[in-house]
């Protein structure tokens, strides 16, 4: 095989690997929300906003709410918590073991300035919803247009 072909093959393999591991292949990972199963961020989050608030929705089923620890500092939201594993199940008793468990930390950059003191969070049906009120400066202001 000529060297040129080998080189092309090598590049093709590199590209395939890069695509596979990059965050830009949601098709492969959609629906996957296991911590520790791969070098992936956990929990996965969705970010939404309206005029007054930012909303962070995190996919975290089975987390012990007492271990959840949220903090806001310098435009970053940090989510810490622990998903407890199943206690006292011996390895040979398992027929399937697909859910993973463990401690996690994730830091999310916020696109707007928020009032740290007024942030509140809600854990419901395995989804964590963090509501972050925007600071006065970050809120959109309506500019009146005068007609001459």
């Amino acid at each position, binding site marked *: 095989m000529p060297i040129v072909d080998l080189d092309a093959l090598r590049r093709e393999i590199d590209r395939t690997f890069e695509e596979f591991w990059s965050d830009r292949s949601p098709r492969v990972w*959609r629906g996957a929300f296991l911590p520790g199963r791969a070098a992936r961020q956990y929990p996965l989050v*969705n970010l*939404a906003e309206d005029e007054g608030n930012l*909303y962070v929705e995190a996919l975290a*089923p089975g987390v012990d709410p007492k271990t959840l620890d949220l903090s806001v500092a310098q435009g970053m939201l940090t989510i810490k918590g622990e998903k407890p594993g199943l206690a006292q199940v011996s390895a040979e008793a398992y*027929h399937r*073991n697909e859910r993973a468990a463990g401690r996690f930390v994730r830091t999310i950059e916020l696109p707007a300035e928020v009032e740290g003191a007024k942030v509140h969070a*809600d854990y419901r049906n*395995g989804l964590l919803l963090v509501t972050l009120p925007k600071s006065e400066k970050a809120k959109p202001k309506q500019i009146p247009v005068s007609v001459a």
Partner: protein
Amino acid sequence: MAEKTVPSVQSETAPTRREDTRAQERYITPPVDIFETKDGLTVVADLPGVEQKALDVRVADGILTIHGKTAHIAPGTPVEREFELLNFYRQFELPEELDSEKIAAELKHGVLSLRLPKKEKAKPRKIEVSVS
């Protein structure tokens, strides 16, 4: 190893399309843990975003079906999305020695726990040996 595994009726690639329905919906196969206890089987499934009312667990013809409808809880307009909540669907064939009448289910923090007890006659019984 093969005979210890509960066969899954559905392929495990997610998301998947249900074949026995005309609904144009797409589904996620939820990850599960299945383990044996002294009295039966326990099935634990991660179903984030599923409310108790939106969850349908049933056993028919020896097949356990878990079907959950999900709903996002965040208001507002999306800025960045890392996950999408699709409905959950998964089926398992149950071994015959389980008592499908006595299945207990609990949903807590988006995790479903099912306890499937063995039938009385399938339980190991200790036989007393009398010494004469």
